[in-house]
């Protein structure tokens, strides 16, 4: 038998198996789960396909057979290396175990961010108290006019913009600011420092300005219901950004890129929880904060309660069950 005849005979004998495998792969790509038999069959097929591909590369390089097998091998490789979907139990485990672990890991950085924000707020307060004219750099003309006439710029805002629309606008803006604080960590952490510092400076400056016009309590009353969680989440986002910056300054892996990727993937669950918390605080800011019918005590109660809920969520206590974690089970039953 000549070489061509042998190759043709081999291709003819294997072609039906390749067609069947292509259909199987297409089906597996659509499926979210696979049975053990299916998985074992695919693992066997992977080995057979690798042998066929190696043969095709040698006997028929550049032909449709070789190219088709390359593509098929790539698809089967992707199916086999697909990360498992954990579903609800994985999400609960993430909230119960991973998020608290990440929060504990980031605790010192969170405290640094709180310190930075507080120091910047103090600097903003001092700046506007000492040089009142500088408020024009921080607040808009409209805001300044409102305060000088004895009212806050937030007064009557729900008569202009419906609470629901206001909430959507606020929560999307807050999420973007927090995500930006994280992403800005890419500039070796400096972008995050700048963002948190600027936010603190503006907060302190605005409080100093309204205090000069006797409206500090009114602004506090507006902020307290949503602000505790909102500012806390911004500090947490800052801490995540700081960790991202740190992963580039002091890489923990072979390259900065790997270190950056590892860090981002590690802190991602906490970032997701922060985004959910900001959705809640956005709705409070849209429905409760601008509504004059809510007395100060109700606002404080809502703000503190939501803040406690945030601690419960970040500490994992909100998701604790009576079941022991695999690690705990292993330690109990060695």
């Amino acid at each position, binding site marked *: 038998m000549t070489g*061509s*005849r042998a190759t*043709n005979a081999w*291709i*003819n004998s*294997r*072609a*039906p198996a*390749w*067609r069947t495998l*292509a*259909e199987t792969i*297409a089906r597996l790509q659509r499926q979210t789960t696979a049975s053990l038999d299916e998985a074992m069959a695919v693992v066997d097929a*992977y*080995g057979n396909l*690798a*042998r066929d*591909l*190696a043969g095709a590369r040698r*006997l*028929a390089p550049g*032909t*449709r*057979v070789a*190219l*088709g097998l*390359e*593509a*098929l*091998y*790539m*698809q089967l*490789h*992707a*199916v*086999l*290396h697909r*990360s498992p*979907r954990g579903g609800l139990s994985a999400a609960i485990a993430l909230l119960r175990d991973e998020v608290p672990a990440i929060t504990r890991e980031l605790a010192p950085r969170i405290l640094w961010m709180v310190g930075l924000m507080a120091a910047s707020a103090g600097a903003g307060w001092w700046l506007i108290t000492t040089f009142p004219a500088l408020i024009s750099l921080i607040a808009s003309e409209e805001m300044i006019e409102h305060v000088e006439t004895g009212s806050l710029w937030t007064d009557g805002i729900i008569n202009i913009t*419906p*609470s*629901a*629309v206001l*909430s*959507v606008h606020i929560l*999307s803006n807050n999420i*973007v600011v927090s*995500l930006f604080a*994280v*992403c*800005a960590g*890419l500039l070796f952490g400096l972008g995050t420092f700048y963002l948190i510092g600027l936010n603190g400076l503006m907060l302190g400056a605005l409080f100093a300005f309204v205090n000069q016009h006797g409206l500090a309590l009114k602004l506090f009353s507006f902020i307290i219901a949503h602000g505790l969680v909102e500012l806390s989440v911004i500090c947490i986002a800052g801490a995540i950004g700081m960790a991202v910056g740190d992963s580039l300054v002091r890489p923990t892996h072979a390259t900065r*890129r790997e270190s*950056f*990727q590892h860090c*981002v*993937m590690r802190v*991602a669950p906490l*970032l*997701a929880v922060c985004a959910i918390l900001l959705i809640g605080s956005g709705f409070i800011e849209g429905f409760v904060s601008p509504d004059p019918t809510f007395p100060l005590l109700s606002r404080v109660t809502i703000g503190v309660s939501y803040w406690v809920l945030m601690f419960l969520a970040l500490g994992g206590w909100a998701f604790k069950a009576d079941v022991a974690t695999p690690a705990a089970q292993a330690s109990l039953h060695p």
Partner: protein
Amino acid sequence: MDREHVSIRGATGVDLEVPIAGPGSRSYAFVIDWHIRVLVALAWLAAAMLIVNGGLAWRPVSGKSGAAWAFLVVLPAIAIYVLYHPVLEIFMRGQTPGKRMAGVRIVTRDGGIPGMGAILIRNVFRLIDSLPAFYVVGLVTTFISAQRLRIGDMAAGTLLVTDEHPTAKIFDGVGAVDAHADADLITTDLAAQILERWPTLAVEKRATIARSLLTRSGGADGADRLPRSDEELKAALMSLARGSNAT
């Protein structure tokens, strides 16, 4: 491994060299996706405005609920625009309609389908990649980075590769070669490829290509005996694709 290919290690010892999608394919996919998401979001906005307000107005008309306006009009439109990429990339296993049209796919560094976390992170970093406007940061990084990565890809550990899109049909003509034929495989494969494209080629062009291949397969002596009509050329190519000597 060169700049345009990534080597993916197979567990069997047989590795793959996958072509990396460049900035052109990325931009092409993004432009298509951007148009789709903007059009769908606007369509939703217009339809929901008509339902909630009874007309195209940018604010809820008096007497209508602000909550209905926010939750039926504004929020879904924003969600369509913002969540288009992450949601479709999760459900289409690393692709979007734009990426599919551009023939590209997101994969992990080991060639797998990216998980939900990686896709979400990749999309969060669009905030940086899109700065200061028109994805300048993302484009610049794809030009200068080793594997044509934007910052979102670096964060998520993903790559954008060209997707060959094989289906069960790719092996349709394979295995039809006469096992006793002596025709060399590359020639039969070429004949099969020309036949696949036969309807899309101009009559004169396909005749020239077919004659050239038939001459090569039959040797110079067979050149005088080549078929002349379009139908005869097609039949000769079909015969060659099956491995028989065409002329």
